[in-house]
């Protein structure tokens, strides 16, 4: 029995017109699927388009073109009321900046219950509050915290409140847009553990957008590598890390710092410059290596990648 993907993105393009002469092509034709209960890691550096992808999928921007099918409903173009409701209740987002993601003037109780309030998803105030308390306990905080204000919490705690706000809607997919990048290392671990625990209990899917490769490898089932708005390689975490084909992926992996002085002091990273590489992302198509492993290349480029695939990283 084949599972239907919970999210299916096909040829998504997000362009921003700055003025008559200049358009920023933040996302320029990417396609990928996410299966229910899976974590898909979207990795890239600044300017790769990863945050834009997340925001386009959740319709904070209006996609320039392409199809986004979520739970069987098309949400990429003009949306029907039903599609909007589907989107706004079953897909949620957690944001990067713990200082800015919560309304400083609202109590934590109201912040977490916001989704319920908007969609009138409760029959009594007690029911509403009770749901909030459950969420607080789920994310490792307690009931008393509901009457406090965001500024009284630390960064990690605020991020957990953001998670509670997303979870209370019982979504099928959560997009984590650099959700841990702004946190201290030991707090990152706390939040990641929490996300994994929740996934085990609720079979929720994550689109995990990040630039920290070690964390992405740890949490993701499959990974997509973005560069300059194109998905240059995608595969399982294992495939990407042990058998990367695209030179950009290779350079990214070689740049990961190891917390091991013996290795780190002698490591040098590969350089990769798109302009000088001779590759043309726009001319490439996705070439299959295994059922899960694909790389963006033209025919020639692909041959070259295969030849060099076992070169040292």
């Amino acid at each position, binding site marked *: 029995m084949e599972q239907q993907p919970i999210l299916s993105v096909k040829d998504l393009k997000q362009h921003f017109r700055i003025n008559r002469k200049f358009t920023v092509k933040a996302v320029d034709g990417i396609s990928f699927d996410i299966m229910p209960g899976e974590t898909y890691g979207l990795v890239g550096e600044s300017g790769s388009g990863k945050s834009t992808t997340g925001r386009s999928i959740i319709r*904070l921007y209006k996609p320039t073109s392409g199809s986004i099918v979520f739970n069987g409903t098309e949400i990429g173009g003009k949306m029907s009321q039903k599609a909007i409701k589907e989107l706004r209740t079953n897909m949620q987002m957690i944001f990067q900046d713990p200082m800015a993601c*919560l309304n*400083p003037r609202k109590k934590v109780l109201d912040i977490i219950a916001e*989704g319920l309030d*908007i969609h009138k998803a409760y029959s009594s105030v007690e029911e509403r509050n009770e749901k909030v308390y459950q969420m607080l306990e789920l994310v490792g*905080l307690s009931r008393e915290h509901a009457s406090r204000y965001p*500024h*009284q919490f630390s960064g990690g*705690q605020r991020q957990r409140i*953001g998670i509670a706000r997303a979870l209370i809607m019982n979504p099928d997919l959560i997009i984590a847009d650099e959700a841990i990048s702004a946190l201290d290392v030991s707090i990152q671990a706390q939040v990641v553990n929490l996300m994994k625990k929740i996934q085990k209990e609720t079979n929720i899917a994550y689109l995990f957008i990040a630039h920290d490769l070690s964390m992405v490898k740890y949490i993701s089932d499959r990974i997509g590598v973005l560069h300059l708005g194109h998905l240059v390689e995608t595969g399982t975490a294992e495939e990407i890390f042990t058998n990367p084909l695209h030179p950009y992926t290779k350079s990214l992996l070689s740049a990961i710092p190891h917390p091991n002085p013996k290795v780190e002091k002698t490591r040098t990273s590969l350089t990769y410059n798109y302009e000088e590489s001779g590759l043309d992302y726009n001319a490439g198509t996705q070439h299959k290596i295994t059922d899960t492993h694909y790389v963006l290349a033209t025919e020639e480029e692909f041959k070259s990648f295969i030849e060099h695939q076992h070169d040292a990283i």
Partner: protein
Amino acid sequence: MDKFEFLPDDFEFVGEKQDITKDVVAPAKPFWKDALGRFFKNKGSVIGLVIIAIYVILAIIVPIISQWNYAEINTSLSNISPNGTHIFGTDNYGRDIFVRLWRGTRVSLFIAVVAVVIDVFVGVTYGMISGYFGGKVDNILQRFQEIVNSIPTLVVLTLLLTVMKPSLTTIIIALAFTEWIPMSRITRAQVLKIKEDEFVLASRTLGASSFFIIFKEILPNIVNQLIIMCMMTIPNAIFYEAYLSFVGLGLPIPEASLGTLVNDGSKFFLVYAYQMIIPSIALALLMLSFNLVADGLRDALDPTMKEM
């Protein structure tokens, strides 16, 4: 090591006695308490507040309880310097200046209230809509605002005076024409600042309507700046009326306002200086007090206090 006194169970694990997984959160500290505290610590703002309070009280009481009527002409009493019976003296027509001053203050305070109302209902709403929706809406609203703003107020007033008689209503209409513009600009700027903040984006992803977002998410976060700005526009509005009255476009005789008093007094400045000096000081002091309160509010409500 010698300076330490060891107890017998020192080197045993604390273990179960403490719960290391329990999260500690700082105790609640309501924002308003903090802000009020800061406001009252500021001597300038307290003085300003007290003075305004005195003005309000006197403006209400004096014209009611005083034996002198503000409009009654009695040439036998004209131009008396300040003394026991006439605290601020009398003017050319024998009218008690003390009564006229506080009667005039009523007008100034009334203008202050009207300015705030216009600021809030027109200025803030205009700015919020323009700022939040952006794009074409913003473009149209801003261009319209710029056109309105570039019409000189004196021209507006003169036009109004051709169809209406000089009165408080006329002044208020003239005021309303442009009073809301600075406020709407400030509001729009504040909205633009906050619009892309993540908690607003979060509301959008949760499906909130624009209305909900503007009034429940954005407004509470910018209301501090707006209050401060409001306070600051009051002296301008008061002075605007005074200025109009001074140039003779204001209230008709025998109405008194701080501006008309200064105007009347200026005619006799070289002979009876008190007639101009006293209302001028009164006007200046009132404006200063509002400015002090506005400064104090700004320091008290400053959003940098958001962090722990």
